[in-house]
Every structure is written in structure tokens, then in C-alpha cells.
């Protein structure tokens, strides 16, 4: 099969499946979920076809442009719809379809007791198709189609249980915040058209080095806003925590492994533009660094297992953004971390779902504890994910995160010191909050009601999940364990991406690499030890202690909602109210006043028409006399 055909089928199959499931409705309830799994699996097969197709070519030929049709032939703006298959998009294709298929399989069991399982799979397939369009697009316009598609799918899936008001509100929040980012992407496209006259990748990236710095900065910042919205980066991060309202497979697929990383993809793909503007690049790094710390701090205080994982996702994407902002030396590391993160974070989310499955949908970690004895498979797979994310030497996260920390230390002036230190310290924080999560859930004393202890709440019978759920977890755990080493061996992943990301000269960090590595490992061990002392060795109170100012702030997501409320929502409401008032008083007033005036005038004039013949004749006589007088006076 040719790459062209595979690239079209990989999108068409899940899209068709979503269409069939949505159109057939309840009639497909019995088999709909398996069709969804099958469609996703078919996409995964296509992804491998594309991978081997590309591997069979020389490094220079690994970019296939698949022309689909002429989409917007409008005078100067001529946009063709087409797919670009190159090592970067192929990497994403594999991640999306492979992890996506595993999560589809998992969801078959996870959603078994839900009446709307078929609809759930239709949305998941829709998401897969949209995400594939996003990464395959060969122009910003088509990318935007996928971008909006994943936004829609995300909205539908966060609000999947929309019978609960707070879930529907969470979906709306995610949708609205994403719109803010989308605005940035639209502005970026407008700016590209104004300065370059085209929105397709080839033309734009070829013209980028000649752009004036002002244009490049403007486009770069607009793209960054778009990336921030989709990837939950500061200052558009507030939606991700609430997005955990969606079913757990959704959190794993969309809000951990794939969709939220689209921002990183956008920045890496538009590398040529960012390289033309050091300001925009620096902003990307700053945004990444802020989010990295922000997410880590929030993650340390959350008691909801899914929200803690969401904060961690935010923080890890901060790492990727930071790397992506460093320029060519960071692109490959950003994508590398994205890939390994996709595996271990999806694995952990599935683990969290498995824990919830065994604990009657309980999410409060203070109500867990000691679950390792009851859920062996979940415990081991989650443990591998945990070791991977904290960067335990040898596991996936170690290879990818360490590279980013090293890259952050490269450069001149104050930047490597600040960003390097932030990246390094965040590694310690990551180790602390992930260990906290892991120990609180699986170790220590059981804090749930097992029928013998004093714990409140209904009696729980934790049990391991069925095979359909554990097998995907095991596969992802294997990925968490070995994927990093496999790809980092001989730098093969970086060579694979080189045609897209460009060759980066090797620079030495400001601190020797062994020192950085050592510091990372030491900080990680300190984090784990602190978490062990507090959440495993000593007992965890059922009610969260008041805590310090920082803890209280972190529990409330560092007041992100209050800030948004005060800075944007309230002034917005007031503006709207004022405008509404102005509309009623001024605009409507003028229109209604005109009408009332005409009515009043008529009312007055009506009095003249009294129906008395004699008054008419009197008026006529007076009129005639008057006319006569006027004529005579004029004559004289």
C-alpha cells in the first residue's frame, strides 16, 4: 500500500466509523464499541504502514505531500487541502493511533455499564480522526480544521455525562478557554496571509527567515496563544483540571497523551517562524517554565487522583514547551518527551481509572491507601509509569526529561541558569507529587472502609479490573519501561526527526552533564523520600489539614479561577451590561421615540377632523380669504 493511500485511509476510517455510529444511533448499541475499536486499530495499522514506508526511503525523501483537493481558491488566497507525511507527523500518527487503540480497548470494559457506550466510541473515533487531520495537515488552514475538531471532541467527551451540571459546566469552560487560544491561531493565519500571502507550511516556512522581526514576533506570539489554549499552558491553563469531569479513558487519551500536546506540535512544526524571532522563542520558554512550576505546585496539593494527574500533565507539557522554545536543539527532545509522556501518563490515567473501577468511582486519594495488595497489575503498571515520570534512571522519562534539563542549561547569559534551574527543581517537585500520589493510593494503611476498620463511607471491595482493562495498561507500562531507552539508543529518534527539526550543533551546557544528571537524580530521590516519609511511613489524615498559605493556594489551583473571574469575567459582564443598557436606552430609545412622536403628532392632528361640516366650511372660508389677502398683498 502506498503512503498516499494509507494517509487518506488513516483519517477516513475512524471518521466513517464515527459517522456510522452517530447516524445509526441506538441500532448500533450492541456492536458499536467494537466497530470503534476496529476503526482505531485499522488506523494504527495504517500508521505502521506509513512508518515502514518512510523507513524504506532515504532520510532526504521522507516527506510525502499528499494533495487532496483544491480547497479555497479565492484570488490571492489559494489554499489546497493536503496531507504532509514526514517523520514528525508519522511519529504523531503512531502515538495517536497506537495509544488511542489501547484506550479504545480499555474503554470497552470501562464503559461497560454505561447506556451510551456507543456514543462514547463515536466521539472517540471522531477525536482520532480530527487529531490525525491536525498532525497530517500541510497548511495552517487544514491544521485549524483538525484543531477545532479535537476541540469539539474534547468538549463532547468532557461533558459526556452532561446530566450532571458541573460536568456540563466543565465542558463549557474547556470549550470557551480553547476558543481564546483558537483566536490566536486565526490571528496568526491572518498575519501570515498579510505578510507572506499564504498559509501552507512549505511557503510560510520558506519565507520565514526573510520575514521582518516584527511580523515574525507577531505571528510567533499569536501561535503561542493558540498553543497555550490547546495545551493548557499559562495563562490559559485553567480548563484542564475541570476537564477531568470526562470519563477516565478520555482523560488518558485527550487530556494527557494526545490533544493537549497539540500546542507543542504547533510550536515545533512552526519552528522556522520562532527561529526568526528570538522574542517569541523566549516567550515560549518562559510560558513553558511558568507552567512547569505552576503544574508541579498544584499537583503537590490536589487530593483528587485525576486532578493531581492533570496538574502533572500540565507541568510535563511545560517541559515540552520549554524545550520547544529552545530552538532546534530542543525540538527533538520536546517531541521525545511528548512521546514517552504519552505512554506513561496514559498508562497512569488508565491505572487511575482501574483504581476508580475497583473503588466505586472514588477519586479522593485520602480515601485510598494500601491498594497494592488488591490490585497487583494496576499497582505494577502504575508503578512503572510513576518511575518513568519521576525520571528513574533507565526508564522512559529519564531519557527524555534529562535531555530537556540538559538543553535548558545550554546558552549564554542569564537564561540557561534560570531555565536550567527551574527545569531541575521541577524534576524534584515532580518526584515529590507523583510519589505522593502513588504512595497515598497504593501504600500505607487502608483508609477506606473494609468492614473491619473505623473508616467512614460505604464498605469497599477493591478488586482487580478485567483483562480488557489490564492488557492496555500492561502494554503502556512496557512502553514506559523501554520506549525511552529504545529510542534514545544511538540517538536514533533524533536522527529520525532530523529532516524536520534540522540538525542542531552540539553545545555544552553551562554545567557539566554528569553534574546535571547527578543533581537530577539526587533531587528526585529527595522528592521520593519526602513523599515516603509523609504519605507512606506516617498516617495520612482523612480530612486534609489546613496547611500553609501555599498549600491552600495550590488546592485552589493558585487561584486561577478567581483571577480569571476578577480580571476577565467580571469586567466582561459589566461591559456587556453597560452595552445592553446603552442599547435599550439610546438605540431602542431613539427608535421608539420616533414612533411615539409620530403617534403624538397624529393624536394632535386628529382633533382637526371633527366631522362638523360647518367647521370645515369655516376653515375653508378663512383659508380662501387668507389666500386672497396674500395674493392681493403680493400684487401691491
Amino acid at each position, binding site marked *: 500500500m502506498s503512503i498516499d493511500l494509507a494517509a487518506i485511509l488513516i483519517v477516513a476510517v475512524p471518521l466513517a466509523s464515527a459517522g456510522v455510529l452517530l447516524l445509526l444511533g441506538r441500532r448500533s448499541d450492541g456492536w458499536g464499541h467494537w466497530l470503534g475499536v476496529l476503526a482505531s486499530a485499522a488506523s494504527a495499522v495504517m500508521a505502521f504502514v506509513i512508518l515502514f514506508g518512510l523507513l524504506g526511503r532515504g532520510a532526504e525523501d521522507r516527506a510525502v505531500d499528499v494533495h487532496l483537493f483544491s480547497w479555497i481558491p479565492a484570488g490571492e488566497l489559494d489554499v489546497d487541502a493536503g496531507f504532509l507525511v514526514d517523520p514528525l507527523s508519522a511519529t504523531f500518527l503512531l502515538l495517536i493511533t497506537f495509544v488511542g487503540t489501547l484506550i479504545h480497548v480499555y474503554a470497552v470494559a470501562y464503559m461497560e455499564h454505561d447506556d451510551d457506550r456507543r456514543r462514547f466510541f463515536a466521539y472517540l473515533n471522531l477525536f482520532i480522526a480530527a487529531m490525525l487531520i491536525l498532525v497530517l495537515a500541510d497548511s495552517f488552514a487544514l491544521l485549524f480544521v483538525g484543531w477545532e475538531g479535537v476541540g469539539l471532541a474534547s468538549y463532547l467527551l468532557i461533558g459526556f455525562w452532561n446530566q450532571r451540571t458541573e460536568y456540563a459546566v466543565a465542558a463549557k469552560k474547556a470549550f470557551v478557554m480553547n476558543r481564546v487560544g483558537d483566536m490566536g491561531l486565526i490571528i496568526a493565519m491572518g498575519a501570515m496571509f498579510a505578510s507572506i500571502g499564504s498559509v501552507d507550511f512549505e511557503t510560510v516556512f520558506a519565507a520565514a527567515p526573510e520575514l521582518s522581526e516584527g511580523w515574525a514576533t507577531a505571528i510567533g506570539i499569536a501561535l503561542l496563544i493558540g498553543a497555550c489554549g490547546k495545551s493548557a499552558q499559562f495563562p490559559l491553563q485553567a480548563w484542564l483540571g475541570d476537564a477531568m469531569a470526562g470519563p477516565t479513558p478520555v482523560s488518558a487519551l485527550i487530556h494527557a497523551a494526545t490533544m493537549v500536546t497539540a500546542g507543542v506540535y504547533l510550536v515545533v512544526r512552526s519552528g522556522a517562524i520562532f527561529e526568526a524571532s528570538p522574542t517569541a522563542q523566549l516567550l515560549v520558554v518562559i510560558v513553558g517554565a511558568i507552567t512547569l512550576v505552576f503544574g508541579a505546585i498544584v499537583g503537590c496539593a490536589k487530593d483528587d487522583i485525576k486532578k493531581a494527574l492533570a496538574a502533572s500533565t500540565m507541568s510535563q507539557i511545560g517541559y515540552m514547551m520549554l524545550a520547544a522554545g529552545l530552538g532546534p536543539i530542543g525540538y527533538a527532545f520536546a517531541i521525545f518527551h511528548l512521546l514517552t509522556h504519552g505512554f506513561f501518563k496514559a498508562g497512569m490515567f488508565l491505572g487511575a481509572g482501574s483504581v476508580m473501577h475497583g473503588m466505586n468511582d472514588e477519586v479522593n486519594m485520602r480515601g485510598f491507601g494500601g491498594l497494592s495488595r488488591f490490585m497487583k497489575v494496576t499497582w505494577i503498571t502504575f508503578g512503572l509509569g510513576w518511575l518513568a515520570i519521576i525520571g528513574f534512571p533507565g526508564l522512559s522519562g529519564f531519557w527524555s526529561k534529562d535531555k530537556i534539563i540538559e538543553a535548558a542549561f545550554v546558552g549564554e547569559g542569564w537564561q540557561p541558569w534560570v531555565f536550567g534551574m527551574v527545569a531541575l527543581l521541577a524534576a524534584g517537585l515532580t518526584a515529590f507529587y507523583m510519589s505522593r500520589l502513588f504512595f497515598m493510593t497504593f501504600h500505607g494503611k487502608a483508609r477506606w472502609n473494609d468492614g473491619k476498620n473505623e473508616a467512614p463511607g460505604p464498605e469497599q471491595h477493591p478488586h482487580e479490573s478485567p483483562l480488557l482493562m489490564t492488557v492496555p495498561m500492561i502494554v503502556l507500562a512496557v512502553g514506559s519501561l523501554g520506549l525511552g531507552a529504545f529510542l534514545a539508543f544511538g540517538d536514533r529518534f533524533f536522527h529520525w526527526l532530523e529532516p524536520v527539526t534540522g540538525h542542531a550543533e552540539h553545545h555544552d551546557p553551562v554545567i557539566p552533564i554528569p553534574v546535571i544528571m547527578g543533581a537530577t537524580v539526587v533531587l528526585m530521590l529527595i522528592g521520593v523520600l519526602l513523599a515516603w516519609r509523609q504519605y507512606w511511613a506516617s498516617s495520612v489524615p482523612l480530612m486534609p489539614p489546613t496547611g500553609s498559605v501555599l498549600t491552600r493556594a495550590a488546592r485552589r489551583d493558585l487561584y486561577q479561577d478567581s483571577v480569571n473571574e476578577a480580571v476577565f469575567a467580571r469586567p466582561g459582564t459589566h461591559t456587556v451590561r453597560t452595552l445592553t443598557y446603552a442599547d435599550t436606552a439610546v438605540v431602542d430609545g431613539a427608535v421608539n421615540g420616533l414612533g411615539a412622536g409620530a403617534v403624538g403628532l397624529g393624536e394632535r392632528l386628529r382633533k382637526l377632523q371633527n366631522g362638523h361640516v360647518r367647521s370645515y366650511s*369655516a376653515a375653508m372660508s378663512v383659508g380662501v380669504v387668507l389666500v386672497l389677502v396674500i395674493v392681493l398683498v403680493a400684487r401691491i
Partner: protein
Amino acid sequence: MSILNYLVLSGILFAIGGTAVLVRRNAIVAFMGVELMLNAANLTLVTFARMHGDLTGQVIAFFVMVVAAAEVVIGLAIIVSIFRTRGSASLDDASLLKS
């Protein structure tokens, strides 16, 4: 006798007719006032025809008479029909078209 006297007479007749139209409530009397005004106008026309030695004025007077005859027929018919339906020939009662 000066020809001017005819004009004065016609002025007086017109004024009487006008006053009758304006002040009398009875439709028949007001109608007679209208006729009086028409005839005053006729007298003026004939007088000026005589003064200028031109027959046009006299011809127009005939036209006016013909029109007045037709008008009397229609006017009286309306008044009679109003009187039959309302039992009154007062002009002030027939003011129903006003609103």
C-alpha cells in the same frame, strides 16, 4: 345706473349665502346658502361679460347652472336619505366620519 351696482349686489348675495352655510344647522338652509353663493358667482360672471363685451362669461354662467342643477339633485337626495335614516336634518348630527 352704474354697472358696479351688480357687482356690489353679487358681493352681498355671496356674503349672505356664506353666512347661511356657516351659521345655520339645518342642512336644507345651508344648502340654500350654497345655491345663493353659486348664483352670486353667476351674477359676477355675467356682469364682467357685459363689461368686457365678451360672451365667454355668460357661457360659463350656463355651465354653472347646469352643474348646480345636477348638484342640487344629488345634494337633496343625500339630505333626504339622511333625514329618513336619522330623523333629523341637522348638520352637526352627521359627524360620524370623524374617527
